């Protein structure tokens, strides 16, 4: 694979998205093209991992301009791993969206493709201003995906969440842009390779880059600038929450790793700030989850807590710490998406993610229960899942760096995480189904509950479940719902008509909805049992961050 192929990671999704927009009412074709392109992106990521195995960096200057003027794209092992992980997540989340019929919206496929182009570009670029542009390319389709709904089915609750999401992200991007302006003012360049080590030598550059890092911390939801995430993420549909959880905050984390390694050259003067901020992030995130009562709110707060863990890797700047941090990053993306997809499947089919209104699903939906339980144990760090390897290596790293307090906090937070996961487990999967669980899919009984609106965001799916129960026709076997196809007449059927005659005690979540979450849960099990592979790849990536000369030379074309 040559460096010039890197541009394809951005070009192909972008062009395909443009071609898909004029296609009207052909959602099957859209879905097929979407999955093909995403699979290609994933394949490209794997090919890059193979190419970067020896620690080399592929780079290209777009348009064959002179290095230093051109837009540089570069991919080393860290980039390749991130491209693979984001590709895998977008693919599984899109599969989930197709299974829930969320993808049947005309603009779903083009928006996800532009999102993919933005994510890939942000991961590949080696230029601060370009990073800003690609983050915006990533965010614009996200804003639309956030409020995407069938005509007349949009919910005010999603709009309120979108207002928060858009304003926070725009403010953050503007701060980042100001930081880029300052960097250009004091250093005269925004090319990462030309800035290599600049912040270590010049305090003015350090201050300017710190503004960029601050903006990226808001995007990554580091405490005390985390509040937006826990409120905004649960406000959209479960599909989109799962997709965003693996992409947006993680791109910001990747950029923090890259910028601190290259521009600051791992400067040890400022590491204490990271250790303090990220320790607080771990604790505050997990405590925030204690008071929440819906699955997605709990998971969103856990995400904040886990972001503290991931970034701790960069705060313990050293080979062991960086290796652990990168391993944790990949592990977390997979596990979190798996959890959001499992609970999302429940939410889509039962119309709520509220712990009070669900129960006893372990008996009725054993596969979702297995998938959730595996991912939850992995999140908490229980062997044999990848979470154990990730937490153990991070713990060893902080002990070897002498950060005893951080190590103790990691263990304590893990225990609280496990308790929180058990709370979801006992609320949703154990016990007896509460009164009125069965007629829940799009129930009109509780308009005051926001979760009801989330069911509305997946209108076709919920309506199909309800309608097929009511008709009792094609849905006699558990599997048919996932593949039942929504024609217009069924989707517009009033939910109330279906609710009264819903058949109790029947399985609602079909294999197509179970598969994405379960597949990711299997990946975390594989990474736990065969952790050696990803650990050695992470070590190669960490070596690339420790010694950035290879990256710099590749970008500058010397």
């Amino acid at each position, binding site marked *: 694979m040559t460096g010039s192929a890197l541009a394809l990671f951005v070009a192909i999704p972008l062009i395909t998205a443009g071609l898909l927009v004029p296609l009207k009412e052909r959602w099957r074709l859209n879905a097929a093209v979407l999955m093909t392109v995403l699979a290609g992106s994933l394949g490209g990521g794997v090919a890059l991992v193979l190419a970067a195995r020896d620690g080399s960096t592929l780079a290209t200057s777009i348009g064959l301009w002179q290095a230093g003027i051109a837009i540089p794209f570069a991919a080393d092992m860290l980039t390749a791993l991130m491209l693979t992980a984001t590709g895998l997540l977008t693919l599984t989340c899109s599969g989930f969206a197709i299974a829930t019929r969320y993808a049947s919206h005309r603009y779903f496929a083009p928006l996800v493709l532009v999102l993919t182009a933005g994510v890939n570009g942000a991961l590949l670029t080696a230029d601060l201003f370009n990073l800003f542009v690609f983050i915006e390319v990533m965010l614009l389709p996200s804003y639309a995906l956030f409020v995407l709904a069938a005509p007349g089915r949009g919910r*005010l609750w999603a709009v309120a969440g979108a*207002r928060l999401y858009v304003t926070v992200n*725009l403010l953050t991007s503007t701060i980042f842009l100001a930081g880029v302006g300052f960097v250009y003012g004091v250093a005269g360049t925004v090319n990462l390779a030309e800035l290599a080590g600049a912040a270590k030598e010049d305090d003015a550059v350090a201050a300017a880059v710190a503004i960029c890092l601050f903006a990226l911390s808001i995007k990554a939801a580091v405490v005390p600038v985390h509040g937006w995430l826990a409120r905004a993420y649960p406000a959209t549909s479960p599909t989109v929450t799962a997709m965003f959880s693996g992409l947006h905050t993680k791109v910001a984390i990747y950029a923090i790793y890259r910028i601190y390694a290259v521009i600051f050259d791992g400067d040890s003067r400022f590491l204490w700030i990271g250790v303090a901020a990220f320790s607080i992030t771990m604790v505050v995130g997990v405590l925030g989850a204690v008071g929440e009562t819906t699955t997605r709110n709990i998971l969103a707060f856990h995400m904040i807590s886990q972001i503290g863990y991931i970034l701790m890797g960069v705060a313990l700047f050293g080979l062991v710490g960086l290796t652990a941090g990168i391993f944790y990053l990949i592990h977390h993306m997979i596990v979190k998406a798996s959890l959001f997809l499992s609970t999302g499947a429940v939410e889509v089919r039962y119309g709520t993610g509220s712990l009070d209104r669900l129960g006893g699903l372990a008996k009725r939906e054993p596969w979702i229960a297995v998938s959730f339980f595996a991912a939850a144990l992995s999140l908490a760090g229980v062997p044999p899942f990848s979470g154990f390897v990730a937490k153990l290596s991070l713990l060893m790293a902080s002990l070897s760096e002498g950060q005893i307090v951080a190590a103790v906090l990691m263990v304590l937070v893990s225990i609280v995480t496990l308790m929180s996961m058990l709370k979801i487990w006992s609320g949703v999967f154990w016990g007896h189904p509460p009164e009125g669980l069965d007629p829940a899919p799009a129930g009109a009984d509780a308009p005051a509950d926001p979760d009801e609106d989330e069911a509305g965001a997946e209108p076709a799916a919920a309506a199909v479940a309800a309608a097929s129960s009511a008709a009792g026709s094609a849905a006699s076997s558990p599997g048919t719902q996932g593949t039942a196809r929504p024609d217009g007449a069924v989707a517009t059927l009033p939910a109330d008509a279906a609710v009264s005659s819903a058949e109790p005690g029947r399985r609602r979540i079909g294999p197509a909805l179970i598969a994405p979450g379960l597949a990711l849960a299997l990946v975390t099990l594989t990474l736990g049992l065969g952790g050696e592979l990803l650990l050695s790849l992470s070590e190669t990536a960490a070596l690339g961050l420790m010694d950035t000369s290879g990256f710099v030379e590749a970008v500058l074309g010397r």
Partner: protein
Amino acid sequence: MTLALAAGVIVAGAVYLFSRREMMRVILGFVLLSHAVNLMIVAAGGTFNRGEPIGKDLDPSEVADPLPQAFVLTAIVIAFSITIFMLVLAITGRRDDDVTDDPAAAQSTAGPDLPDPRWDPVSRRVITPGEEDDA
């Protein structure tokens, strides 16, 4: 110095607007803020050279730095598109744009009996419940 003062004053205006509750004012605040940042980027390139950076045989001591100009152009386009999206969000509510982000409060003040405003493809306009009688 003039640029720094101008950027400072504009940021102050933006921060004031951000402290208002209405979405519309917040959007206007963002318009101001992005202008302030654009001024800052122009200042970062230096304003002492004013020659246009086009053509051949340019004298580096006279020609302005083209890179900040390209940055600002890109930033203006991005800010413009997001402003339009935010304007859409601002009118996608009930009557006014002062919608709380607290779902429980939003539901209780709005009342469960009123459906959301919807787009009517026949009359080609947004129909807000309660206003249909007036029309």
